[in-house]
């Protein structure tokens, strides 16, 4: 098991290296420099700044320097905010994003599971059609539409919750709801399908034939088997949330990574763009790794296979 984890971490580092490389050269392909928008600068001033940030060096040299700093955990210095390290900027920004992401993922998935479960138990009944409707809406309507609706009705019309900005828990509620619709809908569809399949399987009949009551059949025998495959979609869901935050943070003016990323793209702030990309990539591969390990913990069939090797 330890060997397996080491191996996975090794692959993880290779993945990050590749992403760093690709994002570096993609940056170089972008038109313009960080100074494109600054038309008040004289030719000389430009030269000084480009020199200072090493942007006049040949690209291979820039690349090697970049990697060298990266290995030491230094993501470089932002062009936009003078003299502030990218690492520091990202650290300041990660809090709100993480809070939104975790709230949306955890609550959305749990509500989705419950909804899917109700649908499966009430197969072809009212609850089933109701939850199917919710799930289809949630999957097909983009989150920014929900964001707008929430802002207008809950924020403006009812005045229950703040429309935007970031100043305490209540500010996180609307953006979290807008973000959680997608994982909720996905988890609901998935749980319903899996649960229906599990409830039709032979071992459920065995459980009934033992005299297990319906509650026991659904929760003790059904749910665990239905949820094991759900673990596999949590990773992709978490990733979709990361991209979701790009839009949602912008709409709700949340000072998170997503909003930072968008504004950095606008100003060609290469170090911040690359730093954010790397951070997203890092979170992504770590989540996938955790999910894989978790899968082994909850599925005894995989646990054994892992233990033997």
């Amino acid at each position, binding site marked *: 098991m330890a060997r397996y984890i080491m191996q996975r971490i090794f692959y993880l580092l290779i993945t990050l290296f590749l992403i760093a490389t690709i994002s570096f050269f993609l940056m170089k392909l972008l038109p313009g420099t960080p100074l494109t928008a600054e038309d008040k600068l004289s030719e000389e001033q430009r030269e000084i700044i480009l020199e200072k940030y090493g942007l006049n060096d040949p690209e291979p040299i820039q690349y090697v320097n970049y990697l060298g700093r990266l290995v030491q955990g230094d993501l470089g210095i932002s062009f936009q905010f003078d003299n502030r390290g990218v690492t520091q900027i990202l650290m300041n920004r990660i809090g709100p994003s993480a809070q939104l992401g975790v709230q949306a993922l955890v609550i959305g998935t749990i509500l989705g599971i419950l909804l899917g479960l109700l649908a499966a138990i009430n197969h072809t009944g009212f609850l089933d059609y109701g939850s199917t409707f919710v799930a289809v809406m949630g999957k097909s309507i983009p989150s920014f539409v929900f964001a707008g609706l929430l802002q207008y009705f809950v924020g403006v019309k009812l005045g229950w919750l703040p429309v935007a900005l970031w100043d305490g828990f209540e500010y996180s509620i609307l953006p979290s709801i807008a973000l959680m619709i997608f994982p909720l809908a996905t988890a609901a569809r998935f749980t319903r399908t899996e649960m229906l399949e599990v409830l039709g399987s032979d*071992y459920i009949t*065995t459980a009934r*034939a033992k005299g297990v009551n319906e509650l026991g059949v659904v929760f003790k025998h059904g749910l665990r088997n239905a949820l094991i495959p759900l673990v596999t979609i949590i990773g992709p869901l978490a990733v979709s949330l990361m991209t979701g935050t790009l839009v949602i943070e912008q709409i709700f003016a949340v000072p998170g990574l997503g909003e930072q990323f968008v504004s950095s793209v606008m100003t060609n702030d290469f170090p911040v763009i690359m730093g954010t990309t790397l951070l997203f990539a890092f979170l992504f591969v770590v989540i996938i790794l955790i999910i894989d390990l978790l899968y082994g913990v*909850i599925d005894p069939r995989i646990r054994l296979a892992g233990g033997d090797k």
Partner: protein
Amino acid sequence: MENMLEVKNLKVSFDTHNGEVQAVRGVNFNLKKGETLAIVGESGSGKSVTTKALMRLLPKPHGYIKEGEILFEGMDLVKQSNKQMQKLRGKDISMIFQDPMTSLNPTMKVGNQIMESLIKHQKMSRGQAKKRAIELLHLVQIPNPELRVNQFPHQFSGGMRQRVVIAIALACNPKVLIADEPTTALDVTIQAEILDLMKDIQKEMDTSIIFITHDLGVVANVADRVAVMYAGKIVEIGSVDDVFYNPKHPYTWGLLGSMPTLDSEEAELFAIPGTPPDLLNPPEGDAFSSRNQFALEIDFKEEPPMFQVSETHFAATWLLHEYAPNIEPPASVKKRMRGIASTASGPKGDEQ
């Protein structure tokens, strides 16, 4: 002997998109204490549905008991509430299923799956139940039960899993055990072991068994009586000797004739022509008439009643009517009957 189970005019239907499928169309039989009743018949004849109905485990909501009584020790199971059925299932009536690879919960330890009904029905503590689970695994001849009790189903072979399923079914010493093709999915040597195990356990516990199988050799080996089902009805029922040596229904002749025996020299088997009737619109008269080379005119018009052949032997064919012509089973069938008798005599002889 006292009747454990009396099934009277049981009718089971399924509501489907195309209409009502009449899967079981008036089945009558009884099961005595300690006896084994085999149910045989072609695929789709309603064997599984009949036994699922006995446990009230028909798929809801489209499968339902339309009519009839199922008397278990005099109590009509058709009229029991779900709660009462839950108390009965696994305690008084248990079931063993066909496919041991899918009938155990893959994410639950084998021990917990056995303990579940002990805790529920016999109010045992977890500790007591675990001890009993180990004893049960020992009873079904699983080596190292102390170790095995903590393992998951995927750590067992198919034959071992079927032993676990049997242990689960036997946990609370049920009065009636229903085995729906318990050995079909297993290879031949394992089949024989499982059958021997079931016979031993039955002797020990005096359980009544309903045994569904396609294998007439197995019937001869394990059963006291046989019911032959066709298109949702029992067309012939009697002791193994009655049905194997003196079959009266042409469908039974067909079944016996289509069964390979160890010492049958000729390769050619007698096959029943045609296909079973559509249970959406069961035909008028005898459901077997269109495939029956011995059909009489009346077979196409009116359903035959159960005629009594002997004290233990009944068959539903107009051939038994006093005005019917005297028709003997085909010669090839007679020959097979002798063949089956000789395959059966081996294991049976052992028991004496």
